[in-house]
């Protein structure tokens, strides 16, 4: 698995330390503040949401147990499939950044490259920027009338769309920003994987007369596969949780009429739970998001195990 390549185990692994003798009440003093908070604000809410998903909420408060009614309604709701489709579209576009990240990371890891840390900072900057703050300038860049993107497109003879207020294009615009903001993170993870490829392999390839592109294809890519896979999974799971960037770029349903056609899974959840105040229905959506992400994670876990044994 990835961590093996990134953090090579120490020569003599210091075995699992023996636990100290029983310490009476001390361990409880150490864990109880955290456990109390985790129980009240995380564990209980998880159970409660699972229950909420089986209830229907009245407009004026109060809820009644309605069994699987929310799920039945959800699976017949075209908005769910719209949200799922939009989320997949977003994920697909952001995933295009992974090959780009491999390319940039391998260039950035060129031995002896000057200004490498300067480049690294540039590429990582979007990842640490506040999504709502940076989205403000992207809204101007994407503006249909005076945005610089459409200005550049006009330069090559293309009439750009109203990105933020056209269904379809709105999601593409959000995904472009998503790609832009996650590229640096992928590059760092891939860069750590690249550092662990033994230099001897490149030297051997060079002796065999392999050109840089051939070296990249025959040495870098195969040895980097676990890291690439890890980045793919992280990107997919992250993309399925899309909300901040989308809300920040497209705004709320009150200000942007395109929202109902551009829902992502989490935006759909937010809209039902906190705009329409249909908390039982929103809880069911949350459970669906949970299941979808759980499936992706399990696939990752199984494939990763396979990688370790085949190593």
């Amino acid at each position, binding site marked *: 698995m990835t961590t093996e390549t990134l953090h090579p185990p120490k020569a003599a692994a210091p075995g699992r330390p023996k636990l100290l003798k029983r310490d009476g009440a001390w361990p409880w003093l150490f864990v109880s503040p955290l456990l109390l908070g985790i129980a009240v604000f995380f564990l209980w809410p998880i159970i409660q949401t699972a229950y909420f998903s089986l209830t229907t909420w009245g407009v004026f408060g109060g809820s009644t147990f309605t069994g699987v009614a929310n799920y039945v309604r959800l699976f017949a709701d075209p908005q769910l499939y719209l949200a799922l489709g939009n989320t997949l579209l977003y994920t697909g576009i952001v995933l295009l950044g992974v090959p780009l990240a491999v390319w940039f990371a391998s260039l950035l890891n060129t031995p002896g490259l000057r200004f490498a840390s300067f480049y690294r900072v540039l590429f*990582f900057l979007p990842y640490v920027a506040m999504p709502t703050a940076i989205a403000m300038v992207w809204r101007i860049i994407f503006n249909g009338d005076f945005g610089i993107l459409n200005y550049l497109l006009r330069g090559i003879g293309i009439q750009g769309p109203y990105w933020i207020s056209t269904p379809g294009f709105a999601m593409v615009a959000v995904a472009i920003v998503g790609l832009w903001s996650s*590229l640096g993170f992928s590059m*760092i993870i891939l860069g750590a994987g690249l550092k662990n490829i033994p230099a001897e392999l490149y030297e051997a390839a060079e002796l065999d007369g392999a050109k840089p592109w051939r070296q990249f294809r025959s040495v870098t890519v195969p040895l980097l596969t676990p890291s690439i896979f890890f980045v793919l999974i992280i990107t997919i799971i992250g993309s399925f949780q899309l909300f901040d960037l989308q809300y920040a770029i497209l705004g709320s349903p009150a200000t942007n009429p395109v929202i109902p056609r551009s829902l992502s899974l989490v935006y759909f959840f937010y809209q039902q739970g906190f705009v329409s105040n249909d908390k039982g229905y929103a809880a069911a959506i949350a459970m669906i998001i949970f299941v979808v992400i759980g499936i992706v994670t399990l696939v990752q876990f199984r494939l990763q195990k396979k990688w370790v044994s085949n190593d």
Partner: protein
Amino acid sequence: MTNNVAAARTSAALSDPELDPSMPAPVPPTKGQTTGRSQGSDARLRAKRRGRARHGSHAVAHVVLGVGGFIMAFPFLWQIIMSLSTNAEVQSVTPHFWPAELQWSNYATVFETLPFLDQLRTSILITVIRTVAQILLCTLAGYAFARMAFKGRAIMLALVLSILMVPSQVYLISQYQLVQGFGLLNTIVGLMLPGLFSAFGTFLMRTAFLNMPQELEEAARLDGANPFQVFWKVMLPLAKPSINVLAITTVLWSWNELLWPLVVSTNSRSMPLSAGLATLIGDKTTDYPVVMAASLLAMAPVLIMFIVLQRRVIDGLAFSGLK
């Protein structure tokens, strides 16, 4: 950033070393050490050897990374330029690549027309308190889970780690109900409350303590120190690299997050900056340049922290993403 790190946390929980002994325990990055292999003398040697042979490829790398880096930095540069322009310049169909006159007054307008200072204060308060609380609670619990024997330890640890696998939407509704029930909507306490506790932080700190040598701890015990003194005086200083990672991830997450403040604060004066800026989306009454200036000011503290700490932030985030 929150998304990726959350995703990474999920996968981290599944590959917890205790739950799966085949996984190697992670080693936190220490000061001065880059992620993975150190770029010591062998790297320099290699560079020398290959540098001559592949001089051309450096030029290609500089061109590609230069263009890529410019595109990455462009929105920030554009934002700076727009923040110093007039509203008419921002909205002109032919872009003004440089304002006719630098409009520094836009920055003053931010403080005059927006509740910026209130929101800044809220952001700072919740971020500082959450970070301190997470460091305290997570190191304490992480230490106990790693180093102490007590009844129910395994099951409680499993419960805490199981949270890492659950996307935040699943607990959001109920957290909102709780905060509403306590009458804490639109308050600082309500804003920071669930974020004081972190399953990820506990996992991170437990891993850090698991990897520490036992001798120091035993020596301190023999000298008659009680468990808290051992923790505070001996073990906590050793955990500094992981505490840095926790601090960096918590600051970034708390400063930038949007969904929670959006649902628990409805009054723009009680919002942190992330949600406060969101209220300006599509607001036709505010000047674009002023919004740009406000956004830059809102991002500035975190961006400055990143530029000053660079390597440590990158390694810390990559590390928290990996494990």
